[in-house]
């Protein structure tokens, strides 16, 4: 009798479908996967260590480089954590602009997910449409901050400067346009028989397992658990807006796809409400230890000049203590754990990366499936290696 043997296959780190530099060692019995060992760390830049040597405002551009597909959301999570440690509340106008930027970033992240997910599985057309529409959000970012992918527009205590009339115009145009584009995406994939055959019943995970494995975000909601940080623990005036949390039923790749497609719509609803009801007022917190004084003031008042100099050189004065704060990132719950020691640099910053935990659940999702399903399952949990490796 022939001996049962398995074959080991190395996938990545440079495989185009691993969304960065993820390496999987697959053990195969024929074409069926019996064991998976993910290897990460190829993109490790030591952001947590670098952060310990920088002041609180300087860290903001570092956070852009975590989940670079939805950069503003990382800024939001980080800034809100520092504000929690400071014990300050941001003016409502700034909160609304942050929500708009955050939701635009979420749509941008979902655009990249949809395009590359479909591209990985052989449906090439979708990526052209999603990248065409992603361009519109990039233009909004450019109008506001000068940067297209990583705006770094948020600051501890508010936003960098007030928005421009063109920003409002571009956002309105986008809000009007996206529902039409979404119908297009649906036409290409939702009822497509090849798409359905490759995604339905693949990578199924039960609600109980998904929670135990620490999955969050759309990947968890695909299994039918309506956990969304925006609803569970509202932050940045999310309780002002009317939106729903879409959930799936079966927890397979197709349901995770449907959940994200519905999230496009909900994000558009939130942006629409925020841009139409944008409150007037300041965009920075009125706290001399945190916010830079305005340029006019600096030109006329020596104490404002000194204050600006001190804030620029030393960073904001943050008290001693430790906090954890989390937001709903585009991939799941994005949390920051900060330890402040009374200086203007954090003593310790730990990032709760949703993708890190999602990737640790990959063996659970993959074992028992065919090798071709690896591509669709990795695409369906929507990971970004910049955030996993930090």
């Amino acid at each position, binding site marked *: 009798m022939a001996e049962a043997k398995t074959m080991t296959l190395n996938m990545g780190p440079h495989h185009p479908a691993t969304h960065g530099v993820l390496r999987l060692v697959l053990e195969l019995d024929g074409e069926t996967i019996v064991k998976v060992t993910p290897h*990460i*760390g190829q993109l*490790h830049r*030591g952001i*947590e*260590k*670098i952060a*310990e*040597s920088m002041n609180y405002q300087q860290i903001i551009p570092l956070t852009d480089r975590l989940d670079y597909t939805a950069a503003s959301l990382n800024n939001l999570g980080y800034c809100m954590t520092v504000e*929690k*440690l400071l*014990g300050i509340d941001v003016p409502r106008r700034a909160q609304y602009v942050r929500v708009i930027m955050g939701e635009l970033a979420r749509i941008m992240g979902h655009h990249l997910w949809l395009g590359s997910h479909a591209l990985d599985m052989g449906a090439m057309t979708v990526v052209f449409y999603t990248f065409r529409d992603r361009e519109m959000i990039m233009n909004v970012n450019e109008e506001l901050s000068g940067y297209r992918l990583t705006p770094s527009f948020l600051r501890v205590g508010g936003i960098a400067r007030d928005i421009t009339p063109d920003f409002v115009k571009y956002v309105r145009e986008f809000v009007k346009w996206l529902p039409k584009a979404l119908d297009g995406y649906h036409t290409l994939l939702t009822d497509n028989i090849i798409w359905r055959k490759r995604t339905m019943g693949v990578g199924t995970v039960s609600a109980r*397992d998904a*929670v*135990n*494995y*620490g999955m*969050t975000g759309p990947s968890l909601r695909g299994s039918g*658990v309506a*956990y969304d940080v925006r609803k*569970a*623990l509202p932050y940045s005036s999310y309780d002002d807006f009317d939106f729903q949390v879409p959930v799936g039923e079966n927890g397979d790749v197709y349901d995770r796809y449907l959940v994200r497609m519905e999230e496009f719509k909900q994000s558009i609803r939130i942006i629409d409400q925020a841009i139409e009801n944008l409150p007037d007022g300041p965009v920075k917190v009125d706290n001399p230890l945190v916010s830079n004084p305005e340029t006019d003031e600096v030109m006329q008042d020596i104490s404002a000049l000194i204050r600006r100099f001190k804030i620029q050189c030393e960073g904001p004065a943050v008290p001693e*203590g*430790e*906090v*954890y704060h*989390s937001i709903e990132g585009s991939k799941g*719950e994005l*949390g920051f*754990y900060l*330890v402040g020691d009374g200086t203007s640099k954090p*003593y*310790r910053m*730990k990032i*709760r990366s949703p993708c*890190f*935990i999602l*990737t*640790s*659940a990959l063996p*659970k999702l993959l074992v028992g499936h065919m090798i071709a399903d690896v591509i669709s399952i990795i695409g369906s949990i929507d990971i970004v290696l910049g955030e996993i*490796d*930090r």
Partner: protein
Amino acid sequence: MENAEVLDRIKKNFPGAVVEESRFRGESWITVTKNHFLELMKFLHDDDLLRFDLLLDIAGTDYTPGSPRFELVYILFSMEDSRRIIIKLKVNEGEDIPSVTHIWKAADWPEREVFDLLGISFSGHPDLRRILTWDNFEGHPLRKDYPLLGKDFDEKFDPDTIEIV
């Protein structure tokens, strides 16, 4: 259940387990002893009234030269009540901590990360290896005595021999 009730319930079932408790910016921080740690974590997960079913993250901090040197932070979330609590554990250098991977599968990689970057080892972990750095990497980068820059950072080198001049 209010946060205070959660704390009461823990104290009633595990007398002497809570060393320190504090509230800061609306969040409960509970420091527990190592002896009760594993049973307490199991209780927090299984108990019908508490049901902390989601382990969000494990973070370690090096407080050198303080004693004990390290502090571990377990961030737990209960879906039913939308409540977060944070369990703290003080750890001496070289001390083994019982792994919680059999309670929450989510603990697997965070524990490996703490092992990799801070050098705290977990007993009972199924596969305790380095995760973000490579296998024969030396040292633990998030310890405070680990330098931010390597000694050959930004040094001139001879392109032929690749030696620093």
